[in-house]
């Protein structure tokens, strides 16, 4: 795997956040670490730039939030996938597949 961090493509951040929450609820820093982990380090999302996105997604109703305790007994804000969020993940996934499919096709064409 390439270890160079890559800049995020426009519109992929929401998808990654949704995907990282599939496994269960998670606090903000956790999401950022999780993204780094599931993309094999390709995408490093700075916690600062990850901050606004969950707020917007919460207002869209895709995720919900609550205050909980972190691994080290700290109060932290946790995010969890909602039903519309799960549906949104499907939509985004399909859209992504379509894009990557199209790009791959384009690259294969001689």
């Amino acid at each position, binding site marked *: 795997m390439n270890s160079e961090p890559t800049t995020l493509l426009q519109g992929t951040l929401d998808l990654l956040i949704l995907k990282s929450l599939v496994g269960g609820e998670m*606090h*903000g*820093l956790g999401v950022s670490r999780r993204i780094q982990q599931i993309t094999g380090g390709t995408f490093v999302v*700075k*916690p*600062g*730039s990850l*901050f*606004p*996105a969950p*707020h*917007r997604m*919460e*207002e*869209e*109703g895709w995720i919900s939030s609550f205050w909980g305790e*972190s691994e*080290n007994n*700290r*109060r*932290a*804000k946790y995010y969890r996938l909602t039903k*519309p969020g799960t549906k949104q993940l499907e939509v985004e996934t399909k859209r992504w597949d379509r894009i990557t499919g199209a790009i791959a096709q384009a690259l294969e064409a001689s």
Partner: protein
Amino acid sequence: MPLFVKARSLLRNLFLSRRAEVDLDEEVRSHLEMLTEENIRAGMPPREAQRAARIELGGIEQVKEQVREERIGNWLHSVMSDCRFGVRQFRKNPGFTSVAILTLALGIGANTAIFSLIDQVVLRWLPIKHPEQLFELNQDFLLSDFEKLIARTHSFSRIFAADDGPMIAGIDGASQNVRGKFVSGSYHSVMGIDALLGRVITPQDDQPASPLVCVLSYNFWKNRFALSPEVLGRTITLKRIPFTIIGVAPEFSREPSADILVPMVTHPQLAMKDNASVRVFGRLKPGLNEMQANAELTLVYQQILNESPGNHLTPAQQRVIPEKKIRLRPAGRGGLYRFSTQLRIVAAVVGMLLLIACANVASLLVARGTARQRELAVRLAIGAGRWRLIRQLLTENIFLAFMAGCLGMLLAFWLGQLLSALISERPTPVSPDMRVLGFTAAVSLLTGVFFGLLPALRATRVNLSPALKEGAFGAGSSSLRPARSHWGLGKSLVAAQIGLSLTLLIGAGLLLRSLQHLSKVDVGFDRENVLVMWVLPTMVGYDSPKEYSLCWQLLDRLSALPGVQSASLSRLQLFSGFWSRTVSIPGYTSGAQEEMRVSCNTTAPKFFATFGIPLLLGRDFTPADSATAPKVAIISESMARQYFRDENPVGNHFRFTGEDATGDVEIVGVVKDILTEFRDEEYNRSPRAAYIPFTQAPPTMTGQAVIEVRTAASAREMAGAIREAAQALDKNLPVGTVQTQDEVVSRSLGEARSLSGLTAFFGLAALLLAAIGLYGTMAYSVGQRTREIGIRMALGAKRQSILNMVLREGMILAAVGLGVGMTMGAALTRLLSSQLYNLSATDPWTFTAVSMFLMAVALVACYIPARRAMRVDPMEALRYE
């Protein structure tokens, strides 16, 4: 579901914003702590770990701001908080705020008033079906010609004729003045107006043999009959002829609407005798445009004119027929089809006033923006975006403009009364409605953006570090940089204000001077000691012989009154109305293009004595010049000179041609010229005049007359006696109010007076604004240079030279404005020339006087800050250092 979530978020963001903020704060803090812990676990020392965490997160406030911007309803929230902040700012600066609001209110109010007027009289559609199809012809038609037009034109799908006329109605034995309206049978159905009660007028009612019927307008029904349904079938008399009320219908008209509608077939009996023509309206056929209709109708119209009965047209009149064109004008809109010149001028004036108000507030804002530099710099430094700041400043300004808009509405209401008096004799009440409110809101918004954007852009273009460093003394006043006034935005705005206000003042000056010319004009007759009063025998059914005997008796009675020196009458009131006729004179051949036109009037004996008009040759009329006696005339000096050269015209003959053509008329006298109207070029009115005995007038010029009484007593003392004399002869005789001839002449200046008055009022308001702008800018500049001035004084500058320095700076500004204003004035006042009497639109006297006045005001506006500069105590000023 997501909608619900969104709505909840919006509500939370708007109303529970404090909780959301606490939440956000906590989230960021916990995030930071977790990052720190991670770093500690990775082996960093605690302080280093905290630092690294902060770096990784990015600026805390920036992150928070980013989150806030993601929130739903963020903009609404920020607008609300901007408004709150703005209100706090304005509270802190009540002086600035009230000046700005008043200034803008004046501009917005004046524009709202004008708009509501234009909307009412020009723009708004009538509430009828397809008002856009309805057109009026620009030429009036004789009734017989109207019939021909219906038969021949193909441009209209439906057509009707209408004519307004005052009437005397007898209701329950009492008589009262009403506004009557003659309509052809198709009127109601073409307009699409249904009866509220009973039925409307139909083509069957408009036949010669039909029973006489009338329809009441809704308003008249309401005011006179208290909406009683019993009016149906009742009889009222018009000119003593009984009419049956068949219905009640609404009247849609921007002009004061009629009270009683009668079929057109009664026009010849009921209308005033000089009124033989009617207005023609029609619905344009679908698919036709106005141009095509104009062409077709013009052709038909000219055909009809050529066929005019007996074809007693003079060659000159025949020549002008091809120039008589039909032009349709929309009749579905307000009553004033023309956007009159006066209204245009006033609209332009108030537009400029608003521009000045904007420039004024903008220049105040520029100064204030500089004063707020430190505040803005602090906000920029702690992470506010420039756009965010601009938005905040703009919100403040728009808020200001809306406050001004509210005040402006009130002002508009008051101004509206004044303005509507300007455009019509019968002022229509100006009522602000939704359209006007919308207009005001739009103007306020645009104004807010317009005056606020430049200063906001400028104020937020701050170089942070010097601004922050300086601020300790407030208002960026500390640096010793020679504030050698660079020609900035503020000064340009002030110069623009001065320029614009000078333009307005020049316009006002020209109008006032023209008015002054007008009121000094020698009209050629005595207007001070003559009382006048209309009598209208035809309205109560007098025929000519009865009318003549009434007039003679009345003149006898009046002459016998104590204090009366002489009494006479004429058909036309001097300075109100005209009657132009063509003549032919044996032995005089007219030039190819010459129209032999004279103004005509009918008079009783002693008319010239009553008005103090000298009889130069021959004799006055006498009672012997009766209807059956040989036709005679008295002509004016100008007419004599034009057509008889050096010959004595008395004893010579001439003829009236054209309409009401006559046989030979003998000239029995020559009188001095008089003026009957200030502007005579428009209607071919000329000092060439012919007077005929009222007993020898053509039928159209009988039926009414104005009584003229020469007396030393005042109008108030004589009015009662004059009216009594008339009503003693017939208590039903309709008479007008008693006025002095001077009042009549003055009233004809009413329009000019209100136009110049309004322009002067707005011009002075503009000057006041410009003076405030100049004063503000100079005071600000002096305040900023306090230190510099202190140093100059410490180094030995004389107080006088400081005064001069400041004055020079201000006066240069004023002079630049003056130059701009003169140029604009010279370009724009040309548009006024139609309103100027005997005065060039670039009258140097006016330009000079107004400029000097403006410079004097500017000098005062600069002198106050200059004196303050002169009194700067060097010790005080330098102690700041």
